[in-house]
């Protein structure tokens, strides 16, 4: 029987050394080939999503998945093909039993892979792999449809933009198609800037052709002859695969002068992002493609009417385009069968932070946060209590543990001050300080604010100054009211969505974690033990076993003590970084209120 060895070569697995693993496997196979009856092919695939446990190696069609593979395991794996699997490399489920298939792995078991269907299964650099899995069949079908019929199909699917705002995709296309002005453009937004999110990166790296297919279908329906993929500067691998995909599709006659011989043409090119968060905003992105500073403009006219170079333009997110081939192939009607009331289909989330199984997950819209964190993520690391889930990137909000039963879709969360956004989901435990988290996001936004409009530029700076004061023990009464007042100004008067949604992390923080803010301001105490100016650490001598873990982790040498005897922290040398608490396996290190100034 022919076997295929799939080696995950997404950015995450490469960081864990998967290229060396692939090489070692290749060598092991060529060395043992004379004895082996099996014909084995090595394939480098896109991201499997379970990056923390990389490099991931899968044997198909046996469907055996190995995790954390090292090059030295290569020979064992090759020898085991067709025989007993290498048990130590299998994933152990919650009961501690090793599992073979991804389908039995609790991380994958509860997922619903639609957009990610090909990722991890195909070689993203190989067009025939994509074709073999039914790729470009939707395009073929679309070529026999009228533009109006394509748009009707997308409209009936109820697909909403996956970039965060959730604008109905069909309506956007309909608007752009309705204008006569030529030329028209189609843009794919791959400037994924939200800290804590990597959905688009994985799709572009793992299945670039499905995105291209979506873009081509969009271009056909609105009559665009030129398209751009705006991809972040940091996503080197994604750009490489997209460029190759465009080149391959052009040589195969799928793209370019005559799309599949239909006589219709489309020219696609990749634009490198400049590393500015604001360029994820549609009008700023267009300014950036035009070769200007990426500042947004007021949207008196939507970009579907006046977008790139003032021409009708459709701009959609990577994930949105990846959904299009599915809709055309299976009809919009079928697409609506999955998902929530006003949010159809599935959504990819980046489940990260202090969660046991972190990675990329795809679930139908409308599942609860609790399900995502507990069933797929396996709960919080080390069984610590869950405090909040930050969702929606810097413009999203923190949802407290008590509200985790909320469904995740476009509309439910907005009522509670958060939003689904592009799908970043950061799990926080009791050692995350909500004031500090808010400060982090405001700092991020203040840096990334383009500075064009005053409320955003000045308001964020003031909010940052106040939050920094609170974190460093200079908070005073009235700060919270002032923060709320500035927030209202930002929401009402900012030019673009960056400023309008910027207060979300602060507003939800004050709303759900007011106690924590009050503790910082009034008692000068950080309950989570994060804000260094307010925190000191001490070792409980009755619990400490003297394992020296904390002593070795301490960056300033403040921890003293001998092996097997209780350790002590020299407060004068301590910088309250908390490294000792992180490494202590016995819970002997405690955060307490700092009594005197640093």
């Amino acid at each position, binding site marked *: 029987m022919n076997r295929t060895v799939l080696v995950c070569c997404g*950015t*995450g697995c490469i960081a864990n050394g998967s290229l060396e693993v692939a090489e070692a496997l290749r060598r092991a196979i060529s060395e043992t080939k004379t004895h082996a009856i099996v014909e084995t092919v090595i394939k480098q695939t896109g991201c499997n999503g379970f990056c923390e446990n990389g490099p991931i190696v899968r044997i198909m069609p046996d469907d055996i998945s190995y995790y954390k593979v090292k090059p030295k395991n290569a020979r064992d794996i090759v020898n085991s093909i067709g025989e007993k699997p290498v048990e130590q490399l299998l994933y152990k489920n919650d009961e501690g039993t090793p599992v073979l298939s991804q389908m039995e792995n609790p991380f994958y078991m509860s997922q619903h892979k639609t957009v990610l269907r090909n990722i991890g299964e195909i070689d993203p650099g190989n067009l025939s792999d994509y074709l073999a899995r039914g790729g470009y069949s939707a395009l073929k079908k679309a070529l026999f449809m009228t533009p109006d019929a394509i748009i009707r199909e997308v409209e009936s699917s109820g697909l909403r933009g996956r970039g965060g705002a959730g604008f109905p995709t069909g309506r956007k296309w309909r608007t752009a198609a309705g204008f006569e002005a030529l030329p028209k453009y189609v843009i794919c937004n791959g400037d994924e800037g939200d800290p*804590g999110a990597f959905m688009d990166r994985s799709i572009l790296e793992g299945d670039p052709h499905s995105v291209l297919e979506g873009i081509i279908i969009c271009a056909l329906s609105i009559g665009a002859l030129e398209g751009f993929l705006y991809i972040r500067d940091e996503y080197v691998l994604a750009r490489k695969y997209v460029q190759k995909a465009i080149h391959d599709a052009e040589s195969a006659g799928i793209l370019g002068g005559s799309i599949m011989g239909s006589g219709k043409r489309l020219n696609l090119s990749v634009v490198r992002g400049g590393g500015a968060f604001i360029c994820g905003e549609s009008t700023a992105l267009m300014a950036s493609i035009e070769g200007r500073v990426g500042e947004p403009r007021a949207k008196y006219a939507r970009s579907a009417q006046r977008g790139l170079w003032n021409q009708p333009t459709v701009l959609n997110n990577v994930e949105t385009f990846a959904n299009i081939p599915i809709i055309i192939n299976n009809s919009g009607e079928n697409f609506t069968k999955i998902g929530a009331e006003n949010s159809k289909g599935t959504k990819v989330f*980046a489940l*990260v*932070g202090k969660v046991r199984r*972190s990675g990329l997950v795809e679930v139908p819209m409308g599942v609860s946060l609790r399900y995502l964190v507990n069933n797929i993520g396996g709960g919080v690391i080390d069984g610590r209590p869950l405090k909040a889930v930050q969702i929606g990137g810097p413009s999203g909000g923190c949802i407290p543990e008590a509200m985790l039963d909320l469904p995740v879709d476009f509309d439910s969360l907005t009522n509670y001050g958060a939003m689904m956004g592009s799908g970043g989901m950061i799990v926080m435990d009791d050692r995350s300080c909500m004031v500090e988290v808010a400060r982090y996001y405001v700092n991020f936004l203040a840096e990334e604010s383009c500075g064009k409009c005053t409320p955003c530029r000045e308001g964020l700076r003031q909010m940052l100054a106040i939050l920094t004061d609170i974190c460093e023990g200079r908070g005073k009464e009235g700060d919270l009211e002032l923060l709320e007042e500035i927030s209202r100004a930002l929401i009402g008067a900012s030019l673009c969505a960056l400023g309008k949604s910027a207060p979300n992390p602060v507003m939800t923080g004050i709303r759900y974690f007011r106690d924590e803010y009050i503790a910082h301001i009034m008692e000068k105490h950080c309950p989570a033990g994060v804000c260094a100016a307010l925190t000191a650490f001490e070792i409980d001598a009755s619990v400490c076993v003297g394992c020296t873990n904390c002593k070795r982790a301490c960056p300033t040498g403040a921890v003293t003590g001998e092996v097997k005897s209780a350790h002590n922290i020299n407060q004068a040398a301590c910088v309250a970084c908390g490294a000792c608490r992180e490494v202590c396996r016995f819970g002997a290190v405690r955060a307490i209120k700092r009594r005197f100034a640093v």
Partner: protein
Amino acid sequence: MRPTPYPFSRWSPADNNKFASAEIYFEGRMLMEIMPQEFSSLLEAYPKDRRYALAVMQDMQRQYNYVPREGLEALAEYISRPVAELFSMATFYKSLSLKPKGVHIIKVCNGAACHIRGAVNLVGGIKRIFGIAPGETTEDGMFSMELVNCMGSCALAPVMTVDGKYYGQVKIESLSAIFEALRNEAKP
């Protein structure tokens, strides 16, 4: 090429001092050798259109580790746009820098996932090793540290890259070993 006066020397007095010292150090190794004709191959890879300005500057950044003043002038002439416009882009986009960077560029991810898993401690660790804060370069011009927003490898948090190579789940204790290996590699 016609020398044009423009506000390069007016970023801020502090910046200026840093730039001056970097210039002295980098002289001979990086700055001196750049001749205007060197840019022509970079420029001519793209059509004469404003929309390629960002791409050209990114190529310059990659080649020289910064966007040289002469490069901006050459580009301005090539696409017939004012230098001021390119200057505004060079200061706006984070992937561009007007100051020379070190030989090895350390990027510490401070995305949300890395932040709550201790990215700030990594920055502190690097600071103790090299004595540089984010945005600074060591005196010998070997290492630059940058604090960047999310590199999209959140499942491996905290993440750091050195010259584009990813290091996931970095611990403070392992930092010195990583850099020691790099220093040895760099020596002939």
